[in-house]
Each structure stands twice: as C-alpha cells, then as structure tokens.
C-alpha cells in the first residue's frame, strides 16, 4: 500500500467523521436527555440542504454559503421545535410510540420536499473559494472538505462551551443526570427538552449544508446518513457527547481506511459488522456513562 494513499484516506476519514459527527450530535443530545429516538432526524439534514440551496438562490456567490449556515441552523431548529412540541412532548413517556410517530414525520417531510422541490433534487454550487484544493505531502486536500472539518470542530467547541459554561448547559446536565430530581428542584424540564431538541435539530441542519457541498440535495438525502448517525450514537455510548465524537472519528476513519482495500459497498457492510462486534464486546459504548452524567 502506498503511503500517500494511506494519508489521503486518513484525511478523507476525518472529513467523513466530521459529517457523521454533525449528523449524530443532535441524536445523541436528544437521546441523552429525553431517551427519545428521533427517526425524523435525517430529514433535518435534508431541510438544511434545501435551506442552503434556497439561501444560495437568493444570495449567490461566496458569502451565500456562510449565510446559509445560520439560516439552515435556525430553520432546522424551528422545525425541530415544531416536531418536539407537537409530537414528541406528547409521547415522551412512550419510547416505542415516539419511534413510530417520528418515523411517520420523516415520511411526511420527505414527501413534502418531493412535492415542493421535485423528486429530482437540486444542486448547490460551492462558491469559488471552496472549489480549490491544496496539496500537502502528496495528498490533495479539497477546500470543501477542510471547510467541513473546520465547521465540525467549531460546532463541537461551541457545544462544549454551551454545556459547560452556560445556564442552559447547567440545566441540561442536571436533567440528564437525574430527570426526576431536576424536576423536583424546580427546573422546567419540558423547556430544557425543547431547547435541547431545537439545538440538536439545528446542528443537523448544519450537517445538511455540508452534505450539499459534496452531493445533490434530494428528498431522501437524510436517509443515507441517518444510518451511520445511529451507528455512531449506539457505539458512542448512548447520549454521551465525548463518546459520540470518539465514535464518529473511529467509524469515519475505519470506513475510509477500509476503502483502500474494498469497495464502498463492502466498506459499509464492514462498518456494520464492526459496530455489532464492538457492542458485543463493549455494550456500554466507547464511553460508559456510569454516573449518568452528560460529559462534555
């Protein structure tokens, strides 16, 4: 095996890991605090992609993509808020029902996008400054992928700051540790749920913008990333942010390195096998949250 190819795939692994991370952080957050599995999470990615497309249609050029980030974040967060307050809140004590209901929401959103934007999908053209690439040690580093890694690192940093330093972060950690106790001390648990769910959906919206830089935005774009995102959350130790980050890195790099030897389809299969074996050996995930504390 050639060293340059190895380095190249290592870089691709990090870029894939960034996508997985952005796609799965929201899932991990909402699971950590509400024990709710949101099947419509992939559609937040799709929504982010379409919002990026819409923003770039209104504001073309280099600044458009930067503007698309807050637009997609807010749009997806708002949609998340609607789903949380209309569906999930009312089913919070029944995880299986939530699962089916959010899956229904996912199908509705996909069909909605199909009716609004067409089945074919739209294309987001990356601005000039994201179109180039750098060459380092014989490895080509496309600017778009560097941008994605940078956004993922920034989002992770901002999330850590939020959870560790802010009031809402404190409340979130309290609810995550012991929901009943937090409620008993007067914390409005439902408002915390709502805020966390919006935040998670917003991050997924950002992931959607990143996906739009790499491929077409179609009504079913979320479906192809929701499965790796679930794998990341399961492997990370459900609900842990540090675990989610570690799992995203492991799975991203694993998948990219596997592709040196096998095709993409086989590498996806290997990914699944890897996760199944991993949770056999370590059912609690990468990070065991024994203390029930949301580590940041």
């Amino acid at each position, binding site marked *: 095996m050639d060293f340059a190819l190895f380095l190249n795939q290592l870089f691709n692994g990090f870029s894939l890991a960034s996508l997985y991370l952005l796609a799965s952080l929201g899932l991990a957050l909402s699971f950590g605090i509400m024990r709710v599995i949101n099947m419509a999470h992939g559609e937040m990615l799709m929504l982010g992609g379409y919002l990026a497309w819409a923003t770039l249609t209104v504001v073309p050029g280099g600044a458009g993509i930067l503007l698309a980030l807050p637009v997609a974040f807010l749009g997806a967060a708002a949609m998340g808020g609607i789903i949380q307050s209309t569906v999930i809140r009312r089913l919070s004590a029944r995880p299986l029902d939530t699962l089916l209901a959010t899956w229904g929401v996912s199908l509705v959103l996909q069909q909605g996008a199909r009716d609004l934007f067409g089945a074919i999908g739209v294309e987001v053209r990356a601005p000039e400054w994201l179109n180039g690439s750098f060459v380092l040690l014989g490895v080509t580093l496309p600017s778009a992928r560097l941008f994605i890694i940078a956004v993922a690192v920034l989002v992770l940093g901002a999330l850590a700051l939020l959870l560790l330093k802010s009031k809402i972060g404190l409340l979130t950690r309290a609810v995550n540790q012991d929901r009943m106790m937090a409620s008993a001390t007067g914390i409005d648990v439902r408002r915390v749920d709502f805020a966390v769910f919006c935040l998670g959906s917003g991050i997924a919206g950002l992931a959607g913008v990143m996906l739009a830089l790499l491929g077409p935005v179609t009504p079913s774009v979320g479906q192809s990333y929701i499965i790796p995102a679930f794998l990341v959350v399961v492997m990370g130790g459900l609900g842990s942010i540090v675990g989610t980050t570690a799992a995203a890195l492991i799975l991203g790099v694993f998948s990219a390195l596997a592709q040196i030897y096998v095709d993409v389809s086989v590498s*996806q299969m290997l990914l699944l096998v890897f996760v199944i074996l991993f949770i056999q050996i370590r059912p609690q995930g990468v990070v065991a949250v024994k203390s029930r504390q949301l580590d940041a």
Partner: protein
Amino acid sequence: MIRSRLGTLVVSTFALALASCSGSGTGGESAVGDGIAVGVLHSLTGTMAISEITVKNAEMLAIEEINAGGGVLGKQVSAVVEDGASDPSTFAQKASKLIESDKVVTVFGGWTSASRKAMLPVFERTKNLLWYPVQFEGNECSASIMYSGAQPNQQALPALKWAAEQGFKTYFLVGSDYVYPRTANLILKKHIEKGGMKVLGESYVPLGGTDFSGVIGKIQQAKPAIVINTLNGDSNVAFFKQMQAAGLSPKTLPVMSFSIGEQEAKAMGTSLVEGSYAAWNYFQSLPGEGNARFIAAYKKKFGADAAITDPMVHAYLDVYAWKAAAEKAQSTDPEAVRKAAVTLGAFDTPMGKVSFANNQSLVQKAYIGKLKADGQFEIVSDSGADIQPEPYDALAFPGKSCKH
C-alpha cells in the same frame, strides 16, 4: 442493562427502517374504458427519478400522438402509470399489479438492470411483454422483453474502441454497485486486456451513494489516462462534484460515461461535466428531420428548456414499434406482437432508421459525444454502419447464445 437493551432497540429499529424505507410510491392513474390499456412503469421518485421521469414523458407523448392519429387497431390507448420508486422489488410488484389487476397488454418501463431483472420473472410468468428502453449489459435474452437500448457491443465496446484509437492505454472503472456496471466492466476488462492495454483499478459505490472520497483517492493514486464511468442516477452529481473539488476536471482527466445524457448533464450543471465524453445511440444534436420533429413536439408539451436523451428516444420508438407490430399482427396479444415486431423491418425514428433483430434487440448505430458548455454533445465519432445487437459478448460469455 437498560442501556444495552436500548442499544439493541436502536439497532433493530434502524434495521426495520432499512427494510422498509424503500417504501411504495403513489397509486396508479387507472383509466381503462373501451380502449387498450398499456402500462408505463418508471421510477418517479428516488435516486433514478433524475433519469426516468423524462423517459415516462416521452412514452406518454408517443401514446398521445398515437391517440390523436386514431389509436391502435381503431382503439384509443390508455396508459396506466406506476412508480417503481428506484427499488427493484417495487418494480416487480408494480409490474404484476399492472398485468394482473389493470390487465395491460404490454408495459413500457424500467431503467436499471436491477429493475429489469426483478421484473423479468413477472413477465415470463404472465407471458406479457416489456419494452425496455435503456442500454444494458447483455447476458440476458428473454422472449418476454424487447430490448431497444444498446447491447454492450452497441455502446460500451464502440466507446472502448474509440478510446483506444485516441491512444488511451490505462483505464479506471467506476460504477454503481449492481448488475449493469459489474457486467459491463467485466466485458470491458476482457477487451482492454485483449487489446494489450491496462485496467489500473475498479471501484463500486452503492446505487445512490454520495461518498466518493475513497474512489477519488484511488483514482489519484492510479493516475489512469481515462476513467470509464458506469454510475447511475444522482450519484453522478456527487462524483463529478468531488472530482472537481479534488482538482480533477474532465479537462485534465477524461471521463467516459455510459449513463449521462443531455438531461443528466443539465441537472448536474454543465460546468461540472463540460468536456466529458458519453457513448449513446442517440444525441439530441443528431441531424435529421425526424429528430427535429420529435424534439419540437416534446418541447411543446414539456417546456422549451427540456433536454432530450437516448433512453427517451428509445422509449418513444418502443411505443411506435408496439403500435406497428400490433397492427401487423392485427392483435394486441403479447405473443403475436413480439413475433410481428422482429419482422417489421426498418422503420423511421428520431435516431434514423432502425429495426428489431430476431433476438428482440435493436439494430442501431453508436456515437461518441463530447459535452459542450451549452449542455449539448458534439459528436466526435460514429460507428458509420448499423451494429447488429449481440447479447452475449464472445470474450466474456463464450459459447452462450440467444435461444427463444
């Protein structure tokens, strides 16, 4: 304990989602009165919709024109449209619905070979007839299918011959992971080796896949003279986008595609694919009065900026061939129609005169086009003579032949 149980729950849930996210599409628009019902079955949703919706449009246009001209055997033709949803099992299910509950006499449909292979047993069991309009990998010859798209020797091999003449000696094969790209590449590899040239690599991505980082890494490593691309559907958008981001444009590394026509180029944005090559039996830029008339009629119905592609023209001529065969046989019985179809002789189509050979495939020419900035192909090479269809490539499948 609870955690691990929840983990199992998550895993099993998403397995469930996987199994059923292929979901079914919309219901049929059934309208069977006194006329003749025919089925139109394409992916109107999912990854293949980018290509198949316009093929359906072309079939509907032909049916409309035929009805305006008095129908078939004095009866109006009514189309029952179904959505295969880019999913082979949905195609099979919808095909049997069309034949068994809508009682259609024939079906126009399919794009991916996976969808054709899934429908094949349905058509053989019900003794119905499928008109399949897309280039494919051969290695199949069923009496229940009329194959109007190119056989490998009418698209892939002429493309390879052209590439060899241009002096390309090293090849990299990229494709979607299903039967067509795998078989087409098997045939190509045999011919590349026989010609004393080299295959530097071969990579497959699941149909609809959007991550090409690994594939592009391998291409950069292998440094081939040309890439042969058998990706289908909107994976192509992701592939060319990520190639561009990695600094490989069709201008620096030529790409020959077998599933990118005018429609796909337009949907992808021509700046992304300008300068890449395609091999087809029809290009919108072909001269000829029949072609001009078809383009004008299509644009009048579906909008002036519509792009016309090879499979659309094959689909359009399929409907007319079915009409001619039914009238020759004086019956819409599938068995009588298919026997009449292979004895029709040459008939006029937008792609010139073509005919069905005894193996139910089309005798046609092959062209190589280079994509220009306006989304049209400049024809850089053509096969000149008509090419007889050969379902079984002699190198890849020695000793096999077509028996009905």
